[in-house]
């Protein structure tokens, strides 16, 4: 066990966990931030996507020991009122079916738009292809990312 001081959503959290614990489980089990989802655990689906210094990162394979002083943002901290342009676009397009993958999709899309405010459809697809949606909401995800880029 080791003590880690983590910067998450603008706050500092102290946790006492094994150093190999993936950030995903620190968020979910130790901090109660369950918006970040577990699905594959092996960096294949994107359900666990968070931002690490603004970069979309799979939290399921990121050991807490390697987070250091990096800024972590989770879906809970993406915006104060749930009004980030990507969240608004997701509502506007009414993207979700079951909804389980959508926090990860939103986080990935938000990181993309931060780096590249007006991505081409090809760039949207290159990025969003990392996230699985078993319900098959891909058409709407495409549409929502493009809308968020437009409305920004």
């Amino acid at each position, binding site marked *: 066990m080791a003590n880690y001081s983590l910067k998450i959503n603008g706050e500092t959290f102290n946790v006492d966990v094994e150093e190999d614990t993936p950030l995903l*489980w620190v968020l979910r089990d130790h901090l109660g931030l369950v918006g970040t989802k577990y699905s594959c655990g092996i960096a294949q689906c994107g359900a666990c996507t968070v931002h690490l210094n603004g970069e979309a990162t799979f939290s399921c394979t990121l050991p807490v020991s390697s987070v250091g002083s990096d800024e972590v943002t989770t879906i809970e901290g993406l915006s104060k009122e749930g009004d980030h342009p990507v969240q608004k676009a997701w509502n506007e397009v009414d993207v979700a079916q079951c909804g389980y993958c959508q926090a990860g999709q939103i986080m990935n899309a938000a990181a993309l738009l931060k780096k590249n405010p007006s991505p081409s459809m090809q760039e949207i697809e290159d990025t969003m292809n990392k996230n699985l949606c078993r319900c*098959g909401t*891909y058409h709407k995800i495409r549409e929502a990312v493009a809308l968020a880029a437009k409305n920004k």
Partner: protein
Amino acid sequence: MADLIKTNRRDFLKIAGTAAGGLFIGFYWSGCDSPKMQVLSDDEVLAQAHNFNAFLSISPSGDVVIYSPNPELGQNIKTSFPMVVAEELDADWEKVRVFQANLDNDKFDRQLTGGSGAMPHSWERLRKAGATARHLLLVAAASQLEVDMDELATEKGEVIHKKSGKKIAYGDLVADASQLEAPEDVSLKHHKDFKIIGTPVKNVDNKAMFTGKPLFGLDFYREGMVNAMIQRPPFGMKIKSVDDSEAKKVPGVTDVVTFNNNVAIVGNTTWPLLKAKKLLKVTYEPDGTVESTEDHDRLFVELMDKGKAQVMRKDGNVDQAFSKAAKVVSAEYQCPFLSHSPMEPQNFFAHVKGDKVELVGPTQTPDRARMETAQLLDIPTENVSVEITRLGGGFGRRLRADFVVEAAELSKILNKPVKVTWSREDDMTGGAYRPAVRYKFQAALDEEGNMIGYKLRGVGINAGNTTRENNFPSGSVDNLLIESVNHSSPITTNAWRAPITNFLAYAEQSFIDEVALAVDKDPVKFRLELLDRAKNNPVGEIHYDVDRMKTVVETAAEKSNWGKDANVMQGFSVYFSHRSYVAQVANIEMENNQPVLKKITAVTDCGIVVNPTGANQQVRGGIVDGMGHAMFTNMTFKDGLPTQKNFDTYRLIRMKEVPEVDVHFIDNGIDPTGLGEPALPPTGGAIANAIYKATGKRLRSQPFIEQKEFSEFNLEIKRV
């Protein structure tokens, strides 16, 4: 949001408890910047609300509470059910709050998600729930205003007296109205007068989903609970020995328990369990037969030729028809097992307290969860409560109760509240698959190319009846024989979105294409000829409506410009399942000598479309699902264990593999007939038929990409 982050674990749990219960509909992104609007909390609304019936309460503030009884797994029922109630109530949708009801057999019936049956089953009772309350509000208003009831109208949560222009808000009437005796009969609206039904209403859980609120079973937490993961045996095996010494050493693991051929690892958090599970050394020995994919391939051939078949349907004399046929067409089709793989792996919370049990989690069949738990623990069913969380997908896997019962059993053993989480590997290897099936089709044709005989034999591994014997083309052929052979296997199977038809439709619709082309007929005309026969002079009993099927066929041909452009190679497919009709056309064009899948056009007749955005996505999602599994996904077995254990080898369709999908509905005013499944079955056939048209290669097994023929042309997918 900031509050949530600052709170400690304890406070978070309080939030978790309420957020999972209910939410605002029609939320405002800007929050409460309108000072006029006083927003009550859910608890306040619930405390004040007057109850009208199982579905509906209204508070004096005018807030309308609607309970949605059926599990929500992405079929959008939690939005579309309340829309139906609100429609007949003439509610102001902005003031509707939806809550997921717990299992309650006294208040609700058919509280399950399966068979695309919720809306067809509940349509009328939802409408009555709204209409009865509206009637009582009108009675109360008439007496308050001292006017005749038929001088009154309702609109957006108000009763209006047209002559005087007086208006009374529903909230001001509920105290009186809820005391009145409900009428036996109420009149329902004509579908042309719908104001909410047929409009694009947004998912009621949007805000919670898009801000990461704890909605799902896996998000559930209860003070004092432990977490557990279970190592389950390969199919057909039992435990020989367990060495848990290394697993127990993992910090955070508190217990390792062997029960019922399972080894449970227990701890306070999840990560130590995942780690310990890898260190667990369990050896197994056969307990009956242990099967691999090679065994199934061999069995398919054997049973196709000489298996003991059950005759499902027999019309006329097939032997005679085949012996006098001018032409015989014959083909075999095969599909593998598939895992359901919802994005949220299986999980359930159970707390056994003496002879009482509390269950919380994602289930498609809360009543089955309750019954099987009661049975296992030998207690009365009413001692078991079931709280239904949102489901991160289901696809049929969550129709079973295995993952509920084991949690209850473990809670009893540990004498603690426990949440059992399945890892992705557990979810993929832990059973209940879409069964592997092989079909043999034979058609006898006369000189004019009429189908005078038709034979289908299906062989399935734990598939039950592999046919839908009274579906098309039955009724359109004089001489027909449909048979099914089942092999019992230790590998567990279960309904998988559009059970049986998810593969049968592709095989049948490909074969129909083969037959049409063998006699030089246009595939659409050939189907229409058969349908005309079934209409004018049907052979035996049929379970589909020929006119509705013909309409989707003709409309799909029209919307897709069928056969109009020589550069577009098209594949046709149509299927009737779960009471609805869907025809699809896949378009392939050649670019640089390479076939490119450009578009799928779908025409659906599911009766009245309750929510157009939701319905549109059900069709697109069904097509993506049907296409993905037909093209890419395979599950093979080695010694009773799936070879594919996670998404690195179990290939699911991704964004870049999805073509444009063009969705149309038939507007016929028929009561809703189901939409969660019917769009999936036709897709594989439409694509395979287009591929044949473009390349001359007939794909007779799934997944397509693993077929030898496929590697010879390499299909590209063009996106929008």
